[in-house]
């Protein structure tokens, strides 16, 4: 009996060690994953705020014949893409790319603008399968081209931050985030083991108790109430990237087999893998889309087109694939319907998935959230922010538990962790606001404007790190780092500046956006104001506490001198 108790005790201690140290090291990564994940829930809406010329209502997939065809026909790769491709081609690059490998258009129920992609065959490419690509963005109402060089801060920056920290070199960021997600699963299990009063303290937060108790309460509370969210999002994140993490061999060791498989699969499905080399015309694509919608309706599914692909354009082997935008359910599936391009005859309708496939579709769909459900989106934001608070309180607990002891021993450990925690919590919020402020301040026609916006983000974050480090000396004496409250002040200023600059530069103040019911911009402005309010209240609270501590410390020091 006693031996069992000892074993349980040492098991719990082992779990505590794991939770503390892995949580500390990878918590910095997870903090970014949670925070930018919460922002990515509304990535399309943040894009609207950041690119004022796209502030209009979401549009359905437009008519191919009237809008898409002329837009596709205008597309050509940029000079930059051509130069990048040049080393992988024997002979000169052509002036004009004529052989279209594929054209595609993508939209969601939240996108006012339409993203277009075009792939072209390159004569003389060393890898004949390698295509050169062109991207475009159009206004789907009339087909006019929109500037495509603007940084989509939501879907083009915060979202990649969420899963890759924007470290693209050798996919390093994806690997770091994935490893952290794996460790997070371990941290959740070890946390539940350590937390003996899981149900008894489910609703417990005692802010009055002060010190370690209230911090640990908040850590447990935010971890436990959203435990299913934390678990499933770490897990499904790994599922989404499973092809990268667990089977990264398709494009390395097994390249030939991969290609053979693609060709076999294509012939089995009746969807030609390669061009026939025989020119052919194109039947009415709008009629194919209408037929696809009729088939979805017969299966009792919403019929918005999310993704339209024309493969092997102008060739006898050409086909058109119409995919559904999955707005009405969680599972991320396209229910693709494929037609022969030259005749418009149906080739194939994607079958219903196997049970295992359905589970995978549900798991990836719940994370990638293509559904139309505003309440669930906001609940995901809540889940993400609860996760961020859980990690933040973990850092604070780590420091508070050790700083007095470290002060006595003359160790700098708590001081360093505390400065990094400031950087990772208030500094990250400040950096996020920094890019929004830069977005509204930089001149419209600045070359490489998106790069400058990114520099503003990283620059603000670097300043936050510097500031947190320079102000960290009191932690080594067992006191609080004033950087916490000072960066709260910076957040207030930056958040209010972002709202004000949006008003000045676009005329879209809250009364107007709320009056018009234009929630993408109104929502972000309101969130910025809420951020300012929370940071302001926190900063004042910390200042009062610092004043109270100083009042206690001061007479004590004088007494020591006397």
């Amino acid at each position, binding site marked *: 009996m006693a031996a069992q108790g000892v074993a349980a005790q040492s098991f719990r201690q082992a779990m505590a060690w794991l939770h503390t140290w892995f949580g500390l090291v990878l918590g910095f990564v997870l903090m970014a994953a949670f925070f930018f994940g919460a922002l990515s829930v509304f990535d399309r809406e943040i894009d609207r705020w950041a690119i004022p010329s796209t502030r209009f209502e979401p549009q359905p997939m437009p008519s191919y014949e009237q809008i898409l065809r002329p837009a596709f026909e205008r597309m050509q790769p940029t000079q930059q893409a051509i130069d990048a491709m040049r080393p992988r081609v024997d002979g000169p690059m052509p002036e004009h790319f004529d052989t279209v490998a594929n054209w595609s258009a993508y939209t969601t129920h939240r996108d006012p603008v339409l993203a277009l992609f075009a792939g072209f065959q390159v004569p003389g490419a060393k890898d004949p399968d390698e295509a050169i690509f062109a991207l475009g963005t159009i206004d789907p109402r009339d087909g006019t081209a929109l500037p495509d060089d603007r940084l989509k801060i939501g879907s083009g920056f915060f979202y990649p931050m969420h899963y890759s920290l924007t470290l693209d070199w050798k996919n390093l960021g994806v690997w770091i985030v994935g490893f952290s997600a794996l460790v997070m699963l371990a941290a959740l299990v070890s946390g539940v083991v350590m937390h003996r009063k899981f149900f*008894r303290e*489910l*609703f*417990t*937060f*005692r*802010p009055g108790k002060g010190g370690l108790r209230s911090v640990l309460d908040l850590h447990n*509370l*935010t971890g436990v*109430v*959203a435990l*299913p*969210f934390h678990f499933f999002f770490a897990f499904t994140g790994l599922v989404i990237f499973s092809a990268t993490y667990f089977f990264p061999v398709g494009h390395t060791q097994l390249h030939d087999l991969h290609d053979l498989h693609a060709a076999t699969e294509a012939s089995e499905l009746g969807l030609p893998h390669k061009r026939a080399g025989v020119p052919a015309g194109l039947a009415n694509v709008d009629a194919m889309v209408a037929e696809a919608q009729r088939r979805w309706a017969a299966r009792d599914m919403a019929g918005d087109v999310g993704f339209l692909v024309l493969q092997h354009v102008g060739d006898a082997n050409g086909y058109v694939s119409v995919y559904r935008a999955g707005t*009405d*359910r*969680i*599972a991320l599936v396209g229910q693709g319907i494929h037609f022969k391009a030259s005749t418009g005859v149906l080739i194939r309708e994607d079958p219903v998935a196997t049970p295992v496939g359905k589970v995978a579709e*549900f798991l990836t769909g*719940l994370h990638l959230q293509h*559904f139309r*459900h505003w*309440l*669930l989106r906001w*609940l*995901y934001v*809540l*889940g993400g922010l*609860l996760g961020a608070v859980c990690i933040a309180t973990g850092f604070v607990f780590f420091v508070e538990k050790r700083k007095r002891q470290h002060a006595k021993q003359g160790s700098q450990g708590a001081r360093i962790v505390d400065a990094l925690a400031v950087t990772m919590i208030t500094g990250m919020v400040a950096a996020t606001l920094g890019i929004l402020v830069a977005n509204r301040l930089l001149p419209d026609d600045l070359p490489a404007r998106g790069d400058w916006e990114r520099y503003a983000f990283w620059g603000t974050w670097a300043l936050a790190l510097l500031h947190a480090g320079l102000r960290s000396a009191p932690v080594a004496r067992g006191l609080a780092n004033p950087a916490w409250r000072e960066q709260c002040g910076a957040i207030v200023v930056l958040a209010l500046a972002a709202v004000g600059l949006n008003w000045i530069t676009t005329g879209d103040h809250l009364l107007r956006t709320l009056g018009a019911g234009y929630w993408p911009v109104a929502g972000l402005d309101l969130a910025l104001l809420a951020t300012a309010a929370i940071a302001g209240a926190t900063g004042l609270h910390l200042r009062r506490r610092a004043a109270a501590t100083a009042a206690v410390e001061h007479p004590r020091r004088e007494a020591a001198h006397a």
Partner: protein
Amino acid sequence: MHEASHAAWLLSAALLASLVGMAWLALAMPAHGQQVWGAPVPPAHARVLRVLGAVALAVSLALCLASDHASMAALVWVMSLAGGAFATAMALAWRARWLALLAPWIGAVDTATTR
């Protein structure tokens, strides 16, 4: 438009049911009864609160299912439980006495008898 507002009502009711359900479950616990009424609720009352809480959470699930496809309803419900539990914890921390309104049949008299 009519359908959208119908769904909005169902989902608002589901959120409310999750919140109230979580609050009832919390009030049945000795520590939180202490916070709200100054003493834990007597066992008979605690049992009633627990049953009410469980029923409210079930009602919340039913409302979610009435509003959306089952796969989506399950997620909305689980997340609404998280929101309800968090809101209950915050209410207990800052405005504990407000929660007494959710169980007006439990007066100070009832809890006083257990002292």
